[in-house]
Structure formats: C-alpha cells, structure tokens
C-alpha cells in the first residue's frame, strides 16, 4: 500500500484507529513507549499493525551523542522492528543521553565535522542493527550556537550520502527554527535534498510564556503558515508520506483524521 497521510497514534484512539479505513492511512508511535516485554500495550500495537502500516519514531537513540547508542536500547529497537515490521523507522538530528542519563528532549549541538563523523558512525551502527534504512529528522531550534561548520541542510545531506540513511523533514520545525534563530524557512525547504526524503512531519506550535520564541509543542493544529510551506514543498517533491503529529492536548480521533485530509492534497494542485 502506498502511504499517504498518517497521524500520531495515542492509546485513547486505539479502538477507533483499528476500525478506521482510509486510502493510504498509517500511524506513527514513539518506539520507546512499546519497548516492553509484553502486555496490552504491545498487543494493541500489533492489532493496529495487522490492519494499518505503522511507523516507529525513536526519540532516545541519542545519535548525536558522544557515545555509541546504548546497546540494550538498540537491541530493544531491533526486536520491536522485527515484531512490528514498520513501514518507516526514524530518529533525530539530536542528542538526549550523556554519561548514561537520559534527557527527554532533542538537544542541539554545533554541527562540526567531528559531530558529523560521530553521528554518521552511530547511524551506520543503527542501520546495521536494524537491517534497514532509517530517516533522520531536523529538530526545532531555540538557542543560537557558535561553531557550526555545516548548515543543517548540508549536514543532513552529508549524513544521507555517507550512511545511505533517508531524511524526515519536519516542516513545523523548519518554521519554528527560522522564527527563533532568524532564518528563511522557504530557502531551507528549497535547499533541502529531497532525493533523500522519506517522510514529512506537520505539527502545531505554541508561543513561549516568557521569551519571544515559538515552541514546537505538538499541542495544536498545524498553523496556516506551516500548511503554506508544506504545499510549497510538495509542489516540488510530489506526494510524500506525511504525518500529522500530535502529542499534547490530543483532540478527538475524528478531528485528527479531518486534519489529515488536508495533507492528502494533490501536489499538482498545491500552490508552489
């Protein structure tokens, strides 16, 4: 089946998700939430998988960390991949572990050549352990960092060239980062190496209570600006599996499905 648009899957929507049929519909879950020995959580995911394609989105491999991915964690991911046979597997251009402590966030780093080599080696290790290609996602940025030797787009492209990995383009993250760090979201999309593109993420964002920053909060519908950027992108790329990502203030399942319909646009009709 060709993947069209998918939605994040939350436990409260399992039953509706299992019953729903729509052309190209797929679901994405955070891989870590299903890395358990057994029980109802895994059984739910297997039931969904028996009627829909599933994408496993990892948040804790810490591929941009200063160490190789945790061996036990990588084994658990590989076991989950064997069990679920996902349509897509993805991770982030970020780190989330240092000296064995985990940070539930996608942390930034200067894009140096040293970091590139480290991350490429970690992606190689991961793809070998899983026996498949993974996609790497651009994160949201809040903090200007010194010492970048690579632009984010070039860094992602180089990772794809060196490791054969694919890329996951989060359009909301591009928008949020461009706002926060002062960049041009359209120019980012136009420079993005779409030949490596495996998946697109769309999500809503919020405004920080204290600072003039947009926050990639995943707690609201996709904004009009991000939809405009998305249509601009797919006018160039053609159809790409696209996720409506929602992790907080999760609305009714039907509301998510209605938002998903907006991502099922015909690229030929999308405005460049």
């Amino acid at each position, binding site marked *: 089946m060709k993947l069209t648009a998918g939605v994040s899957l939350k436990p409260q929507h399992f039953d509706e998700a299992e019953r729903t049929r729509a052309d190209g519909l797929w679901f994405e879950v955070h891989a*870590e*939430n299903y*890395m*358990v*020995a*057994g*029980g*109802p*959580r895994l*059984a739910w995911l297997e039931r969904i998988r028996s009627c829909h394609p599933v994408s496993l989105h990892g*948040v*804790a491999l810490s591929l941009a*960390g*200063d160490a190789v991915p*945790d061996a036990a*964690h990588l084994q658990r991911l590989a076991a989950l991949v064997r069990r679920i046979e996902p349509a897509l597997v993805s991770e982030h251009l970020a*780190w*989330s*572990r*240092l000296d*064995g*402590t*985990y*940070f*539930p*966030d996608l*942390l*930034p*780093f*200067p894009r*140096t050549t*040293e*970091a590139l080599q*480290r991350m490429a080696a970690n992606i190689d290790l991961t793809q070998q352990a899983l026996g498949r290609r993974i996609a790497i996602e651009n994160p949201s940025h*809040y*903090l*200007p960092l010194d*010492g970048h030797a690579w632009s984010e787009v070039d860094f992602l492209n180089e990772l794809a060239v060196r490791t054969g990995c694919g890329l996951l383009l989060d359009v909301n993250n591009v928008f949020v980062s461009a706002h*926060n760090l002062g960049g041009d979201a359209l120019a980012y999309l136009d420079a993005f190496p779409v030949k490596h593109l495996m998946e697109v993420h769309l999500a809503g964002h919020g405004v*920080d209570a*204290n*600072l003039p*920053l947009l*926050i990639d909060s995943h707690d609201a519908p996709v904004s009009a600006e991000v939809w405009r950027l998305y249509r601009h992108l797919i006018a160039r790329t053609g159809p790409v599996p696209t996720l409506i990502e929602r992790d907080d203030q999760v609305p009714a399942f039907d509301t998510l499905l209605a938002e998903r319909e907006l991502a099922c646009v015909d690229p030929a009709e999308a405005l460049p």
Partner: protein
Amino acid sequence: MTHTTFLQGFEQALRTEAGHPAMAVYRNTVMKGRIDALEANFPAVLRLVGREWFRSVAALYVAEDPPRDPRLVLYGDGFPEFLGRFEPASELPYLEGVARLDHLWVESHTAADAKALPHDALVGHAPEQLGACRLVPHPAARWLWHPQLPIGTLWSHSRASDDTADLGDIAWVGEGLLLTRPGHEVQWAGLTAGGAALLSACGEGHALGEAAAAAMGAEPECDLAAALALLLEQGAFAAA
C-alpha cells in the same frame, strides 16, 4: 571545543540557571518530560496528594534520580522509596506503599506474556504430591503486603476515583494486594499476609509444602486452601 566538551557544558547549563535565556526552553522540556512521566506512572499517588504537591515533590525526585533508561513508561522505580523518606510527607505514612503499588502495576502491565496456570490445575492431586509441587509466579504477577497500613484499599480507591471523602470508613489495619494479568488487562485482589508469604516462597523456588509453612509462619491462622484458591483464581502462577 570538542563535541564532548560542548555536550558536557550544555548538560551543566541544563542543571543550573546559567547560560543563554533560551536554555530555559530546554530546561522546561526536560523537566516537564520527566515529571509528566512520573505523573502518568503514579496515578494513585497523584490523586491522593493533588497535582500541585505531586509536581513539586516530583521535581525534587527528578533532580536526585534522573532517568537512566530511555523508556519513561518505566521511570520512577526509586520514587516510592524517595516518598518514604521525604520529610514533608511523613504525615502520609501510606504514600510509599501506594507508590509501590503504582510501580508494581506498571511492572505487571509491561511484563512478558504467558499463560496462567488454570485455576483447577491442582484438583485431584494427593496432599503429598501437592506439597512437592513447584509453582512459578506468572511473569505479570506482583504483590505487596503491608503489616500496618491498608495500602491495597487506599491504592485501589485512588485508582478508581477522585473522591477521597469516604477514606474515613477504612479500617486502618495491615493489608496486601495482588496484581495479575491473566487476560489482557491488569486486575487486582486483596491478599492476606499468609497468601503473600506463600506466593513469595514460590517465587523463591520453594515447593508448595515449604511455601505453606512460610504462609503459616507469617499468619498462624492462615486458611491455606483459601489462600491458594485465591492465587489460582487470580492467575498468579504461570502455566507449567
């Protein structure tokens, strides 16, 4: 600056108030992610103490014992013990036990799948055969006995509703609770001191005869047949 030096500096800035104002975004996200996980994993504690108190004590725990496992669905194995020695909570002596039951529920919910020993599996065994039987607890079976406090009642009440008004009716005596998962979902039942000792002895590899002696030791007036029947009924043992 090497990659590692940067990560170490950033991690330090996460723990302090230092650095660029935008560091606050990362600090908030990391803190919120950890506290949200504890809130999800300790729902009975949350209901007993209220959200505001829970989140402030959770923030203290998080600073002392940050996650060492990326699976936040399992985070907080040290939280019950932390609550037990948390001075401001000393007027709520049952909090640690209730937190333990929340954590045992998570363990039961995520434990490996296995068939439970059928409730009539021991029917027809002669007494001496029974005594030599070695029963293995089901992978999802968890249990706890508290000699002084009705933690099972407090916990199950808190899991079920927000209404703590009728806690006055509770008998303040020792109590145990058994969590099992014979089907898809975790279920629970009250457990006596003898029943808990019986199951613990089986878990340590003792034959049923020795486990029965342990049960009588823990609770001299224990009704062994009833205790065993309850364990079998609840699916506390794994199928051979």
